[in-house]
């Protein structure tokens, strides 16, 4: 059995890959997918702790994170569609109307 620290390290690496994607990609849909990747990295941490500590609460929390992620996917993609309809682009560098 791999030690808990290795599970946490894999989760940290995936989370940071997601962070990097959010910070340097400009396509709104890919930024959205990177957020999903970060959510999954956190899920891995929760499940690893849950199984190593023998406490099921972590897995219940992951279940609810997945529920919220599904809701977030629906709303987020609807926002992307509404954005594309109004601006004909999903490049977040060109969507700057709220920027000072």
């Amino acid at each position, binding site marked *: 059995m791999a030690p808990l620290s290795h599970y946490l*390290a894999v989760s940290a690496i995936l989370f*940071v890959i997601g*962070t*990097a994607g959010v910070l340097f990609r400009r396509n709104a849909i890919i930024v959205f*997918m990177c957020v999903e*990747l970060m959510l999954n990295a956190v899920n891995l941490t929760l499940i690893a702790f849950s*199984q*190593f500590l023998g406490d099921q609460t972590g*897995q219940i929390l992951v279940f609810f994170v997945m529920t919220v992620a599904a809701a977030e*996917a629906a709303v987020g993609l609807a926002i992307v569609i509404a954005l594309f309809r109004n601006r004909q682009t999903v490049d977040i560098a060109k969507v700057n109307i709220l920027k000072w």
Partner: protein
Amino acid sequence: MPLSEIAFYVLSAGAIIFALLTITRKSAVVSALMLVMTFCFLAGIYLTLSAQFLAVVQVAVYAGAIMVLVLFVIMLLNLESEDIRITSSWKSLVGVLVALGVLAQILAMIFMSEDKLPKTISASAAVLGTTESVGTTLYTAYSFPFEMASIILISAAVGAIILAKKRLA
């Protein structure tokens, strides 16, 4: 090295490689497919932790439902591919540096406190991960949050329809 340990390292390497491919591909469709692969590898990692129920939910909900939705939107919008060279702006470079800094911090935190972490997987882990066990807890101790989840889902569905529908002039 026992089989489950080898499986963990192989699956982790796969998940990390496909995650890197996700953020470095120009085409959004290819990125989405790479992300599906990452989610499948993650489901395998959940299996090495004997969290069977969540592994199956991961494949069905993430790799299945959510990513199909994403692919539908990508194909609906007919996107042009973007310039993703890291040097395309100084902001991208700063973004990657910030991410690497965060990684160094998290890894330092994990490995400096390694001796405080539990050494082996809990003896009850195999039981805790089954559908029966998760379902029992979900429908008894957590039945109220479970019902609240249905409210979140229905409001998200209504919100998505309102956001995406054509405005009548």
